[in-house]
């Protein structure tokens, strides 16, 4: 890894390719949850790697490279979220009443499908859900990153969870209907 990073600092294309290939899957798994589609996620990944290669001199070798890359990918995804938000009418959220699902059905849902459900959230809910639940930010940090108040962050998280429950229920119903 050290040699790869040194190669990237010299702008050696082969080193850049190997680093890209090594961390591509990890980077895309982060960006996919923040993006509306996988196509957009791949664009975000490449934008993120552009930043990685441009700022590689700022990387501190004593810390984890993976954590540094993760941070850059999240920030790049948030930049994309800001662009999306400009014209996105926030979807009105109906209250989720009494959503029950079959535990076995949940376990059957693939990771890819679950990420697909996260992508279906509105950008504001998706960003808060990802930052708070998956990436471990506090509501204060989420508010700072997205330019919203901690209260709005909590509210959006609540609505994001409600939407996800409803989508899981829909998914479960479709599967049930298919089986029968």
């Amino acid at each position: 890894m050290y040699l790869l990073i040194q190669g990237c600092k010299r702008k050696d294309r082969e080193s850049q390719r190997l680093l890209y290939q090594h961390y591509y899957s990890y980077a895309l798994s982060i960006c996919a949850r923040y993006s509306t589609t996988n196509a957009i996620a791949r664009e975000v990944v490449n934008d993120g790697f552009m930043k990685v290669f441009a700022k590689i001199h700022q990387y501190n070798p004593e810390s984890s490279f993976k954590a540094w890359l993760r941070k850059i990918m999240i920030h790049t995804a948030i930049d994309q979220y800001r662009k999306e938000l400009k014209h996105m009418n926030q979807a009105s959220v109906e209250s989720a009443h009494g959503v029950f699902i079959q535990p076995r059905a949940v376990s059957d849902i693939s990771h890819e499908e679950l990420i697909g459900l996260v992508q279906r959230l509105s950008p504001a809910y998706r960003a808060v859900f990802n930052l708070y639940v998956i990436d471990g930010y506090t509501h204060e940090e989420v508010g700072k990153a997205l330019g919203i108040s901690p209260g709005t962050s909590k509210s959006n998280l609540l609505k994001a969870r409600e939407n996800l429950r409803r989508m899981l229920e829909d998914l479960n119903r479709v599967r049930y209907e298919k089986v029968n």
Partner: protein
Amino acid sequence: MKKLTDRELDDLFKSAAEGYQPSFDSADWEAMNHKLNEKPASTWKKWTPFMALSLAVFFTGVWVGTRLMDSHQPVLPKEKPDSGKAVTGLANQEEANAIANNKATAQEVPLRQLDGMRNQNKQLTKKEKDSDLLSVRMAEDMALIKENRVDESIVYPGEVPFWGLVNGQEKNVPDSVSGFERADVTPDTAVIRDEREEVVKRTDRVHSLSVRLLAAPDFSSINFYPTKEMGSNYSIQLEYQLHPRLSVSTGAILSSKKYSSDKEVIYSGYRANDLIGSCRVMDVPVQLYYYLQPDKKTNFFAGLGASSYLMLKEEYTYSIQQAYGSRQYTRQVERKNNEWFKVLNLSAGVQRAIGERWHLQAEPFVKVPLSGVGEGDVLLSSWGVFMGFKYQFR
């Protein structure tokens, strides 16, 4: 049956995020490699095509105009007596002939010789006043003489000889003109008192260059659907007069276009249920103008041309019907699309002279799409009214 708690829900998606491992796609590295190879283009490089096009159009217009001018160049009378006739009003015929033969420049003419001319002009008859145009030219020549540093103190209003001697160049003097109305011109201001205000010297302004500064509201829509939002247009254009009635114009219009549609539209080949668009566009028009009354202070005109759209920034939000319902998408791109001559420009307007060189202009316009433009390949039409000034260089 179990209600999923917040913690269970969070754990479910956390594990999905950790376990999700998309496979490597070599096409993405190709895109990345291409991106790394791209050097950040400097601003002037981005505008090179636009500059080259504008310059090409402009100089072509100038060239065509020059050719037209050459083909209409009047033939100068070669015989001396004719020339002498043309400058009647001089104190003596010998001076007139000498001047008409272009043997002396304006500076070289002994200005004191002109002293005797003033009284001569009293003999002018009403017949001799029949050309306002000539009076205007005389005023212009007086101004040019001033530029040649002729002593103003000994240049008298309406001195005829200079009419044929601007910068030492012989001019064609109509035979019909034999005199001037002295009171119409003063040496300091060269102002023409034109009793018939509608007749002005704009007929002399062929092959001149103008700059136009205009602004307009922008109403844009897809397929001419009614629009609610308003954008803006700010324009700077150069206009070259090819003929008293015909001119060519080009320049740049910085345009903000906002539009939306609740009806079904085609976005990038897809049927979108609705669409909200917002674009910043550098509109590069190439336009021909036809002036209906070039010799009037108030002049009506019509324009026809085409525009190229350099899409600086595009933002779209649209919905597409899918199996589980309508899904909303957003798309934002910057400086990705350049649309060359895909928009037809039609306009009609009026201009009013407010001085020697300034004009006020109002120009309602409509821009009709000849093809889809931008990321969504949408048929974007626009209309509005340009208002502003035109400054005409001599």
